[in-house]
Each structure stands twice: as structure tokens, then as C-alpha cells.
């Protein structure tokens, strides 16, 4: 839906210092452009729970991180985000890929469609779904609103094939 260059430019404009990520086949395509632009450091971690907690340390240390994972990683990493967002009350922000939202050819009946939105709501995350390219400005708007209010936020980006 979005090119790596679009995302890299956006992160730069939002002054995101670090993207902490486990890639999927959509958001992973943005990494090269982010690194080429050079304004935002890509921090590669092995598991999504790590991503939330590395972002926690970054935020505490004065940086401006963004978590970038797939919804399957959201399912895996609940305790890590709970601790960061609800125990320590840190305003972390994530872009989460929504697997199979646009196309279920690869994974017919993908249960990500069943569990992604209820999981985000269960974790009391303030989230916005982006399912069309023209919704691109929503990313910056939600980032800026949550930064202003000091709250956590999530953008869920609809994806096609798994």
C-alpha cells in the first residue's frame, strides 16, 4: 500500500529516531528505504516482545521510537506491551501489519481477521485502521495526537498476501 520511501520520509518528518522491528512481507519491504534515508535507525530484534521493551528503554532514555511488527507478533508480545504501556504507562507507538485483511489467497480463513481487532481493544490500545492508500495522513495525525496527549497509539496497516 505504501512505498518504503513514503514511510522513510514520514518517519523522518515525525522525528522518529528508531524503528524497532520484526519484519513481515509488507512492512519488511520498508527497511532498506528507512536505512538509506539515514534519519531513523532500524533496530532488528528476534521476537516481538523484545520490540516493545527495547522501545521502552529507548523512550525512557529520551529517544523517539516506533515499534513495527505484524499482528501475529502482537499476539505473541502481549505481556511486554502490557508491562510497558499499562504498568510503566509509557506512550509507545506502533505500526502493526494486519495480515490477510486485503487478500486471503495465501491463507484462506486466516484467523488474524478474527483476533487482531479484539486483541488491540483488549489491550486498551488507541488504534486506527488504514485500509486505503488515501488514509496515509492518518499515520502522522495519530502519532501527533498521541504524542501531544502522552498516550500509547497504534496504526494497523491492512496487508494483502501473507
Amino acid at each position, binding site marked *: 500500500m505504501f512505498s518504503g520511501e513514503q514511510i522513510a520520509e514520514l518517519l523522518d518528518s515525525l522525528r522518529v529516531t528508531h524503528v524497532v522491528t520484526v519484519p513481515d512481507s509488507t512492512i519488511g519491504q520498508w527497511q532498506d528505504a528507512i536505512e538509506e534515508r539515514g534519519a531513523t535507525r532500524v533496530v532488528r530484534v528476534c521476537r516481538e516482545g*523484545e520490540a516493545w521493551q*527495547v522501545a521502552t528503554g529507548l523512550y525512557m532514555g*529520551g529517544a523517539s521510537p516506533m515499534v513495527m511488527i505484524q499482528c501475529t507478533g502482537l499476539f505473541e508480545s502481549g505481556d*511486554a506491551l502490557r508491562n510497558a504501556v499499562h504498568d510503566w504507562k509509557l506512550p509507545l507507538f506502533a505500526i502493526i501489519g494486519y495480515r490477510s485483511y486485503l487478500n486471503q489467497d495465501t491463507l484462506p480463513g486466516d484467523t488474524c481477521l478474527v483476533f487482531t481487532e479484539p486483541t488491540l481493544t483488549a489491550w486498551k490500545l488507541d488504534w486506527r485502521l488504514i485500509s486505503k492508500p488515501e488514509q496515509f495522513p492518518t499515520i502522522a495525525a495519530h502519532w501527533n495526537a498521541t504524542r501531544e496527549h502522552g498516550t500509547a497509539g497504534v496504526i494497523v496497516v491492512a496487508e494483502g498476501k501473507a
Partner: protein
Amino acid sequence: MMPAKEALVVIHEARGEEDVVITTMTPARDWMTLSQNPRDLVLVPSAMGHATSMGLGLALAQPERRVIVCNGDGSMLMNLGSLVSIAEARAANMIVLVFDNGTYEVTGSQRVPGAVAVDFAALARGAGWHSVFEFSDLDDWRRHCDAIYAAGGPTFVWLHIEPVYGLPGPRSPGPAAARAKQFMAAIRSESVRTVGD
């Protein structure tokens, strides 16, 4: 093997005033009796096994500040991937110490998987760490601690700790959100450069 608290005393004495020290599980319980530095982060409550990950974030945000993580062996086992992530990020200002007593002490001293058999030093080297140390004797640890602090990091230290039975787990020293604010104020208000400044 050495007592956890005595091993922590060595760290407490060698620790620089500006260093961040993150503690969790058994080390957290004993560290609270030794130190009240505003740059201490007692990770209670924690996300299971993530002290090393939080430490990595702090180390990257403040690359001129040393970040010391006192971790349990059970916690390390829950997040072994973080050894790879830290090596990948080349967090040279980071020291991770694993307090290996072979048990989940805070839940009643159940045996951790792989107790005795796991070679944490080999795991760290295999993950890409070059500065890796192992100590089972307290005097030996005390003699080498300063040199290890001065070594190029990231640095991994495996400490063999005497298990203790029947002690309670660490108790949170206060509401986490309030402590986060105090901690952030302490580490952001100083002259150490922060990424993004």
C-alpha cells in the same frame, strides 16, 4: 558459587555514579537494600525476561552512558534472543550479568530448564558477544570487576550464585509509573548526550 548479595556489593562498589543499573528478580530484591541511586531501575513489575531488552533500548538512546543489567538465569532463558539483538545493535556501553542459581527463586525455587547444563558463556559467544566472562568465586569476581567494567562491550558476565530457599521475591518499591517518571528525570536531565537531541 557466591551469595547473590555479595556479588551485587561488588557491582555496587564498582558502579559509576552516572551508570544506569537495571535489576530484576533475585538481584532486584538484594539491590534495593544496597542502593538508592536515582539511575537505578528496579524492574518490578517486569515483562518476563525483558530486562535485557529494556537495557538495550536505554543503551542505544544514551550511548555515552553505561547500562548495567543484573538479570536472573530464568529471565535470561526467557529472552535468549535478546543476546543476538544486543550483539547485532553493537551496544558497546552495555553490561549484562546473569545471576545463575539454577532456580526460579522468586516463585519458590523450582529448577529452571537446563539448570547446570546450560553454558551461558557459550550462548553469549555464539550470539556474537566478544567480551564474555565467568566467575564462580567471589574474590575472583571482585578482583576482575573493574577491568571488566572498562572492557569494550557489550560485555557478558556469568556469575554462579548460591541458591537460597524460602526468601520472598522482590517487592515493588513503589508505583511503576511514578518511578518511571523519576528515573527518566534523572537520566534525561544530565549532560549525557541522547540520540535525537
